């Protein structure tokens, strides 16, 4: 199973903040362990939300709003993509993640739809199309 592990902004991610050296070293070690265990598939860090944009439909058009955005706690700071055997295994790995020295933080664990699950979810739509194609 693949999981997206979402690291929430710790309140300082709307603006760039230099993480301390000890935390960076611990995080590097944690990433190396994930990679060696075959768990790590991808990882990315995001620029502060202040530089981002949000686009939403309004009256049939897309409306663009530039950052910064109000709800810092819900902003994404970065993510990993992990391959594990269960959600419990993903949570156990998260618990081993180093904690930044400043502030509270939150990590969200969300299973990724794999192609088969996606197809199953869409099965009614797909089977209708397949039946039409076969007819």
């Amino acid at each position, binding site marked *: 199973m693949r999981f997206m592990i979402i690291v929430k902004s710790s309140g300082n991610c709307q603006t760039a903040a230099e993480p301390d050296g000890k935390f960076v070293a611990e995080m590097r070690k944690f990433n190396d362990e994930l990679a060696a265990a075959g768990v790590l598939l991808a990882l990315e860090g995001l620029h502060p939300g202040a530089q*981002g944009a949000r686009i939403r439909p309004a009256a049939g058009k897309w409306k663009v709003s530039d950052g910064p955005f109000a709800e810092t706690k819900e902003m994404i700071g970065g993510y990993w993509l992990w391959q594990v055997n269960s959600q419990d295994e993903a949570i156990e790995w998260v618990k081993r993640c180093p904690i930044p020295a400043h502030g509270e933080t939150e990590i969200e*664990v969300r299973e990724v739809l794999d192609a088969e699950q996606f197809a199953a979810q869409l099965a009614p739509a797909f089977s209708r199309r397949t039946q039409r194609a076969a007819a």
Partner: protein
Amino acid sequence: MRFMVIVKATRDSEAGMPPDEKLLKDMMAFNEELVKAGVMLAGEGLHPSSKGARVKFSGQSRTVVDGPFAETKELIAGYWMWQVKSREEAIEWVKRCPNPFAIDSEIEIRQVFESPELTDNADILRKEAELRQKSEQNARR
């Protein structure tokens, strides 16, 4: 430059409702255009938050909270990773995206850090490249 394009959740996505056939076709056509233009690097959809969990870190304590989570419009339903030349180009592509849900929704774009933006230490950059190489190998397995 690379952008993470985040599709926010809606009541429908949180209920696990699949997209209808027309939207699915429109979205597939949009994805094909992104691929053809060399913009698309990756894309994933997520299960509803009811199946997810959060781990809260405070000091040295870690608390696990099971989903679902309340603030639907701040949750992620899925994302793309795009390679574009500018923020404006990313926004232009988003504007061409079919509305991902039958109801109102929101897409957020955030630039991704490239390793050289974070450090000029050659040793760290080399290790970072090795880490990415190893994760790509894991992904191909």
